[in-house]
């Protein structure tokens, strides 16, 4: 079985995110890191490999992004992927969710995976939906937000929370699954794995290499145009108490609640 894991490079959570006023796009400069939610997808792949129910031949990390995104791939490899595929092309810049999903599906198609795993959301995109886009292009069954996954022969038994409670769904392979962060506790990479990551094979492909239709990607190929960024209605800032002396803090909270007749 071959597993592809979609990973993304995102701004480090500690860095303030902003829109670049000159381009109207997310400012993607500054500290960047592997999307933390994607480490759960890599860990899920590793647990399938180590679980022994099926033979995993290869785990391939796949990303679409600028040149710097190779760092996210190296991190993914240090966490267990055997090699990685980097889809990088200026023509892809400014792609919306649908265009990104299409481009990624072409990259995945070139790998013919039995299972595609993704994170539950990207820290900067916050769409939770790339998996559903990719699956439709690949003509594979799909489920998002999966928190338990049992693999057997040619199928998966998945559990996830939807709007009426927990659902259990049986899915046949090949399939596209986005995993929720409750599915596992990702391991830390060993120093040896971090050092070795740079030596693992990394393929860089252009849009043309993968047969991506240029009219369907990039800012021009996207069917959604975002702009007119504005501020939400201003909300009065709340009061903040730093807890230095807990007895005092508690007194202040009680006074605050009492003033509002909440006790």
């Amino acid at each position, binding site marked *: 079985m071959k597993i592809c894991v979609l990973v993304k490079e995102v701004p480090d959570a500690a860095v303030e995110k*902003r*829109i670049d006023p000159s381009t109207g796009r997310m400012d993607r400069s500054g500290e960047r890191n592997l999307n933390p939610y994607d480490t759960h997808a890599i860990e899920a792949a590793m647990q399938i490999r180590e679980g022994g129910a099926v033979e995993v031949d290869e785990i391939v990390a796949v990303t679409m992004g600028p040149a710097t995104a190779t760092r996210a791939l190296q991190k993914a490899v240090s966490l267990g992927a055997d090699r990685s595929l980097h889809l990088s092309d200026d023509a892809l810049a400014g792609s*919306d*969710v*649908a265009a990104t*999903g299409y481009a990624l599906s072409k990259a995945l198609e070139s790998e013919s995976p039995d299972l595609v795993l993704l994170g539950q959301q990207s820290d900067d995109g*916050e769409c*939770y*939906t790339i998996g*559903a*886009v*990719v699956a*439709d292009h690949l*003509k*594979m*069954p*799909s489920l*998002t937000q999966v*928190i338990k996954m049992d693999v057997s022969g040619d199928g998966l038994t998945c559990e996830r*929370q*939807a*709007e*009426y*409670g*927990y*659902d*259990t*769904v*049986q*899915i*046949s392979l090949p*399939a596209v699954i986005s995993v929720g962060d*409750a599915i596992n506790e990702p391991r830390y990479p060993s120093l040896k794995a971090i050092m070795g990551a740079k030596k693992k094979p990394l393929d860089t492909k252009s849009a043309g290499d993968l047969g991506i239709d240029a009219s*369907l990607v990039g800012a021009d190929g*996207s*069917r*959604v*145009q*975002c*702009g*007119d*960024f*504005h*501020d*939400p209605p201003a*909300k009065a800032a*709340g*009061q*903040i*108490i730093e*807890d230095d002396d*807990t007895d005092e*803090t*508690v007194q202040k*909270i*009680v006074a605050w*609640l009492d003033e*509002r007749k*909440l*006790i």
Partner: protein
Amino acid sequence: MPDILTYVLHYGGAFNKNSLGAVSEGAKQAAAIGGSCHAVVVGGDDLTDELCKTLGNYGATKVFRAKGPEGLAQPVVDAMAKIIEENGHSYALFGGGLLGFEIGAGLAARRHAGVTMEVINIKADDGKLVAERPILQDSKISDSHYRGDLGIIIGRINAFEVGQPSSDEAEVVDVDVEFSPWSSQAKMVKRGEQRGADVDIEGADVLVAGGRGLGKAEGFELAEELAKAFGGSAAVAATRAVVDAGWYPYAAQIGQTGKTVSPKLYLAAGISGAIQHKVGMQSSENIVAINKDANAPIFEFSDLGIVGDLNKIMPKLTEAIKAKKG
């Protein structure tokens, strides 16, 4: 005609409240751009004529009904793609939740359409719809303009209000859908399982909500003690993170795939304030947050924020409230 097709989710013989909100919103926007609002339902025999007609109460003039599996996104993508192809709808609208995201995204792929999620407001501009979506942890709002034949709008939960029902009835049209092979490769084994005790939190005036910061299942005792100290109708609520982990019952979960509440007091302990949680509690009258991380997003929308360790603060707060009540 710029018609709008809304997906309506149902469960246990009743329509989803967010879907009804989407129908009301769809009817309003259709009127603004000179089209009609239609609905699509996919399911079994519980989708009776009587039930489907009631979508007219919220402004749908026509309901497309397809027989198919429930609770899965891809069969609905097949149904909507076919209906849109045959009827030329200009927009597809969803009330949010989880399935709406999956269906909307799948439909975007199938129909090569633009999609915007987490939409909180729709504006009609010169016969077209523009979707407003908060970005960057809700610190900015971005306007989505659509190009091409179809625009897909996925609302944030509770963004679209359910309108006052009228006595209008919708026309019900059956559609035969041939499902894609991959749509039949996922099978629902068990749906809507309620994990954990059946607690009732919706009537509570005071909710003490706990998140991953409580550390472990036993950490919820701190929240329960504090709720008890408030007395009356105080109860304990939770985030998805801790419900998924099995620390607290699903019935107590607040947020996108849980409950929406607006108590007099919402006291959040060890909760980061993710958007999917926020959408279920932001209309609470007073929000108090205890979090050890001064940068936690929850402080952006709390009325009183305490930066500190909940393990130190909660027991003392419980004692102080008990003492105050005497």
